[in-house]
């Protein structure tokens, strides 16, 4: 079983991202769960969402405490939230950042970075103050972890984003090309 | 298909006979002549009646019928509540004791 935790801010699309990832894995024949943090989400507030993937049927029905992977959709969250809490060793952290993985203060983990904000804005996803980076991060995640194929993510996007399916698909592909890995 | 209505009091013998739904399949008013509950009887003075229809409209038991242009009391069912007399704008209805002592 693989468990993934998304850290975002309300409005960035973390919940939809967890769902797209689950659908992508489902297309590859896996059993899946995707869920938001069971709380009261508000725009801008730190939010978390989760995806579980397994080759066997998933029967456990509780939270994810020890994820294999963490996706950080907003670099500023690194200061506000303990994003690596419970992360399994060796875990992978995928961060939305202009910086390279070496520049991140997460040396004990495998780190991948992608400038998702610029890619999102280049593709007209969200606004300057609130870029929507969810599909972009998934492109980076697919390459960084190899847990799902990029094609499965791309196939899952049009159904699950409320608008701009084409732009989201293109941004996701760009992120897959531009993600920087360090391990 | 809805069962055809039988307008008569059914003769239930056991819990199995009563319909599943607590429904009354016959017109209850037919067998229940509430006119016998009456102490005072509404009596209309047709000279005063302005045929406004307020008594007909306000009767809580639909015991006042409307015959072309004037009210007619169904004494078989009128309980003698007196609402018609109270509401009549021309004071045309008097409540009279059923049994004169």
């Amino acid at each position, binding site marked *: 079983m693989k468990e993934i935790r998304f850290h975002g801010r309300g409005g960035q699309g973390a919940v939809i991202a967890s769902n797209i990832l689950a659908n992508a894995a*489902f297309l590859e024949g896996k059993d899946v769960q995707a*869920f*938001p943090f069971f709380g009261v989400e508000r725009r801008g507030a730190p939010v978390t969402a989760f995806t579980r993937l397994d080759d066997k049927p998933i029967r456990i*029905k509780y939270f994810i405490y020890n994820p294999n992977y963490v996706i950080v959709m907003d670099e500023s969250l690194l200061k506000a939230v303990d994003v690596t809490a419970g992360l399994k060793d060796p875990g992978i952290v995928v961060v939305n950042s202009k910086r390279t993985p070496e520049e991140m203060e997460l040396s004990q983990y495998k780190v991948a970075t992608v400038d998702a904000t610029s890619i999102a804005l280049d593709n007209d996803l969200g606004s300057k103050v609130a870029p929507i980076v969810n599909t972009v991060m998934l492109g980076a995640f697919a390459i960084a972890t190899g847990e799902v194929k990029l094609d499965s993510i791309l196939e899952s996007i049009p159904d699950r984003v409320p608008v701009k399916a084409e732009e989201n698909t293109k941004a996701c592909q760009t992120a897959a090309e531009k993600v920087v890995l360090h391990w | 298909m809805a*069962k055809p*209505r039988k307008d008569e009091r059914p003769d239930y013998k056991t819990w199995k006979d009563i319909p*599943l*739904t607590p429904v009354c*399949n016959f017109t209850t008013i037919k067998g229940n002549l509430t006119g016998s509950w009456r102490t005072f009887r509404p009596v209309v003075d047709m000279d005063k009646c302005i045929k406004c229809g307020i008594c007909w409209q306000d009767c809580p038991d639909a015991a006042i019928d409307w015959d072309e242009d004037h009210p007619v009391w169904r004494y078989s069912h009128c309980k003698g509540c007196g609402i018609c007399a109270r509401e009549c704008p021309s004071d045309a209805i008097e409540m009279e004791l059923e049994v004169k002592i």
Partner: protein
Amino acid sequence: MSTKKVISGNYTAAYASMLCRAQVVPAYPITPQTTIVEKIAEFVASGQMKAQYINVESEHSAMAACISAALTGARTFTATSAHGLVLMHEMLHWAAGARTPVIMANVNRALAPPWSGWADHTDSMSQRDTGWLQIYCSSNQEVLDTLILCYKVCEQPDIMLPAMVNMDAFILSHTSEVVDVPDQKEVDDYLPKFDPEYTLDVDDPRSFGTLAFPQSWYMEWRYKIQHAHDLAAKRLVDEAKAFEKHFGRPWGGLIEEYRSKDAEIILVTMSTIASTTKDVVDSLRDKGRDVGLVRVKSFRPFPTKDLREALGHAKVIGVADRSHTYGNEGPLFTEVKGALYNHDRRPPLVGFTVGIGGRDVLDTTIEGLYDRLEKVADGEAYKEVTWIDLIGDEEEVV
């Protein structure tokens, strides 16, 4: 042909209502049920679902509208949760008494104060005497299948009872899982049109909800509700077989036995906790421990006979409740004990109150319950009821 989709429990319930061709949906939104009625409103607005969607001013009105609509012969659906459900309380009695087969999804959520939006069965447990069928689901697939099955069973002329299909807040309502969604034709072929014997009809007037006197027939009408529950217990199982033949997947029975037939230590529980428990049972069995699970799916009708057969051989039985009857114990615990009292073997029963207000019930939580039960099996003294995972010391003994 059916399609597998990754969808939340709430969307699953919405799809089920559309596939079952619910004709009238009066609803009032409440977290965490909201996305059920949002989705249905979308279906109706787009013309995909041919139903009358009624915005009502409260849940009490929602249920009143369901009852009236059902009396005209319409198939009805609504959904609620927590405070919405308890506000419906009077109308729940009315729906069952009037024998209207209203089908409702209830998202099990805790009651305030203090406010909590999370999983807890207090809302539906406090409606257990209203005459409704109550089924507790442990997956989104089961939510879909149970809703279809409930329409099929509840609308039968000798049943005519309302049913509440319960799903845990967030754990099912907001969690996307793989759900095999049948197509319209498959559901149409399984589910006949609703055709009640008596309907509200201005051209053929009848009075509904009449007065019944002490000497005839109030008590008899109430007995008929019990009688219909007894029939429903059998019918659910029979119709589930037809369901399996038609849709190609089992629904099972009123209870689910998981590696319990040869187990000495059995945990009885419901809903999503039971799903997690299956993994725990497998892992403890791998370690050679003699444990099993019995999941109660139908709380009303209560599966007394099934439980006697499934639990009679056990050395010790634990019952985990996600609600509590204050002044006593968990309601499932009470009822399981009651079911076993007249059994010729009466193994010790231990009650656990767990997961109140959405407190996460982990695999380790459940392992802890089995550890406690093993000690009881070894002859150690035990407390009859324990609140599990309280913060601080073990609860005080007064």
